[in-house]
């Protein structure tokens, strides 16, 4: 496959996933806002990497300004509309590598969303808007899963989705790491823990896996080390490794630094212990993980896209 095509497919996977992650984050933010912590919107801006841009433009964090920046503002490259625009633009450049269903999902999402104004997501409309965004991404992922030939094109989309998801989970955890490292049991902390799980669509899963009250160490374990939760770091990195291995297998075993690094990260997650991670400092550990994920993305591009 052409390197440029692979690049577009990889970013197509990343941008659609990013749009859904921002939507998930918004979903938690507006719920939490009712609890009056006030910190929620800022945490979301940090988790999505939008804080510097937001502060430069708006200064003070207000719910309205934060929602606008995260949904509509074309100046924010990680905003929902920008993600859809970038996803569609990447998809359009490699139309022939997509199936008609994928393209329709992408194109119709863009047609529906492109004219979005504050009136579409402001105030009470936000929850409905977020649901629509999540549905569009689910539709796209379903179309990819159901209709794509199981070749390199499919693998590069999956690779982008998995890597973006890994990055997102680590960031989500990191902006709330303080809540998982000490254990006062007030109502506000409990709500924060719920929020962490909800932003990874994992609240129900927690109950199914542990059948127990929320506990910070278990929450960290679920989101970092459990293979059965699709948004856990282990699940995401195992998927990245699996996809990289599948691509290598299709090319007669051709491997590079990205394969080694991905295998190393996955192994550390597969055989890691939550107690060790917490003892060494969750924030420090997550910061390292976010850095290594970025390094992995760079290694993938160096090997497959730039041919280095």
């Amino acid at each position: 496959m052409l390197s440029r095509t692979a690049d577009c497919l990889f970013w197509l996977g990343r941008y659609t996933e990013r749009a859904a992650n921002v939507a998930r984050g918004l979903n938690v933010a507006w719920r939490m806002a009712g609890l009056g912590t006030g910190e929620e919107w800022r945490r979301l801006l940090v988790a999505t990497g939008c804080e510097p841009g937001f502060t430069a433009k708006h200064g003070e964090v207000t719910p309205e300004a934060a929602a606008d920046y995260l949904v509509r503002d074309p100046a924010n490259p990680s905003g929902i509309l920008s993600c859809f625009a970038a996803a569609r633009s990447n998809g359009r450049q490699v139309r022939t590598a997509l199936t008609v269903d994928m393209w329709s999902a992408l194109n119709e999402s863009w047609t529906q969303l492109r004219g979005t104004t504050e009136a579409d997501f402001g105030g009470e409309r936000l929850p409905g808007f977020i649901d629509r965004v999540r549905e569009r991404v689910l539709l796209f992922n379903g179309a990819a899963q159901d209709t794509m030939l199981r070749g390199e094109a499919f693998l590069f989309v999956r690779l982008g989705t998995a890597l973006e998801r890994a990055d997102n989970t680590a960031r989500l955890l990191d902006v709330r790491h303080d809540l998982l490292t000490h254990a006062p049991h007030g109502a506000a902390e409990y709500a924060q823990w719920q929020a962490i799980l909800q932003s990874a669509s994992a609240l129900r899963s927690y109950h199914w896996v542990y059948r127990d009250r929320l506990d910070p160490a278990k929450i960290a374990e679920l989101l970092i080390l459990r293979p059965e939760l699709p948004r856990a770091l282990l699940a995401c990195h195992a998927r990245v490794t699996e996809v990289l291995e599948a691509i290598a297998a299709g090319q007669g075993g051709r491997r590079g630094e990205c394969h080694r690094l991905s295998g190393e990260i996955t192994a550390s997650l597969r055989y890691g212990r939550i107690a060790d991670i917490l003892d060494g400092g969750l924030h420090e550990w997550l910061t390292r993980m976010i850095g290594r994920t970025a390094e992995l993305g760079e290694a993938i591009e160096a090997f497959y896209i730039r041919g280095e």
Partner: protein
Amino acid sequence: MGAAFDEMGEGPQLRAAYAEIARWLAATPREALAVKRAEAEYLFRKVGITFAVYGEGGDPERLIPFDIIPRIIARAEWERLATGLSQRVRALNAFLADAYGKGEILKAGRIPAALVTGNEQFRPEMAGFTPPGGVYTHIAGIDLVRTGPDEFYVLEDNCRTPSGVSYMLENREAMLRLFPRLFAAHRIAPVNRYPEELLATLKAAAPGKAGHQPTVVILTPGHFNSAYYEHCFLADEMGVEVVEGADLFVDGDVVMMRTTAGPKRVDVIYRRIDDDYLDPEAFNPESMLGVPGLMRAYRAGNVALANAPGCGIADDKAVYPYVPEMIRFYLGEEPLLNNVPTFLCEQEDDRAHVLANLDRLVVKLAQGSGGYGMLIGPHATAAQREEFRARIIANPSHYIAQPTLALSTVPTLVEAGIAPRHVDLRPFVLSTKDSVRIVPGGLTRVALREGSLVVNSSQGGGTKDTWVLDDAPSVQVQSQSQGYVSC
């Protein structure tokens, strides 16, 4: 300019090939046609067949309006056209080989040498080099217009990178979906083999060293190009990669493409970018679209380019008047298709005639395209004519002029109902060393504005499906058409 010839005709003048269409139009309420038109637009929008127009504001991804009433050409008419097209393109290829080779037609004084070797489109890099198989314009689009039952003219030749073939194919697909019963009532020559024929043509162009399964790619300027959809569509239909300049590089005079599995050798490039941008080493050094070293690889015989660089001297509007001479000179035949009489403003007599008759002539840029920079005398204001007069006097060699032809019309669905609108036709001619192939049909462009003669999509033109009808109409239609003037 008299009344235009209508290809359908009406009453006793209804032409046989249109009998079934006339019946269908008479039997179908306007609202039903409007619904079908909306459905067609939805289909095109959904597939994403858009034409990108940048720099004019508004939506950059536009649909070319599609008219649901087909344009029909009877098989016998088509055969005459096809023979004439084949003859013309063979002569154009022979001319290109000669112009970049021995220059015999110039030595014989049949075409002024200055018009060729002094032409901006002449590529000295091509002189003395013979492309694989000796073919220059592998894919040519010849624009034809019609003025009467038997009068066809070649309006212009497109020997460089003619576009529009995806519309020929997609229009047919849309019509099949919208009007299956109409298809059942006609015997329409299929067009869907075009991609296969194109791939065969491109493979045949491969250099000798390429082996049996040459790697073919389409080189596009990128997704900002107005024809980007077409580049992807053709690549997809042929099962080849669509590449941008940055996807290719030249290593030891061999062209390679960057793939996820490492570099892969490329044998044939169907390039849809202009000569100037092909190779910054050989042509425009500012080009970001091309591939440095491509011309070296080409001249080393390691890659084929379709079409060859330098084809612009064959479709230049100032060279156009000499195409009939090329046919006589290279093929020893009389031209089967007419040229439109053309005045070269560069020549004194012609210029005097043009300046004295600006209100009756069409003035065009000798190297323009897309209907820009054009004066349609009878429809122009006095001020516009004076502006062109000044431009012609300032730069006579930049302009040619032709009489306004009464282009034929075909019934078209417009706001007010069904009305005649002017059309042209661009068939696509594929050439290899041994053969010329033409898929029966082409792109019919229609000027949607009443009275307008400009069919270019960038100027508000639309398209129609073009049906080449096999002669024996189904029995039912035959009985219908009895008593009508047959063509």
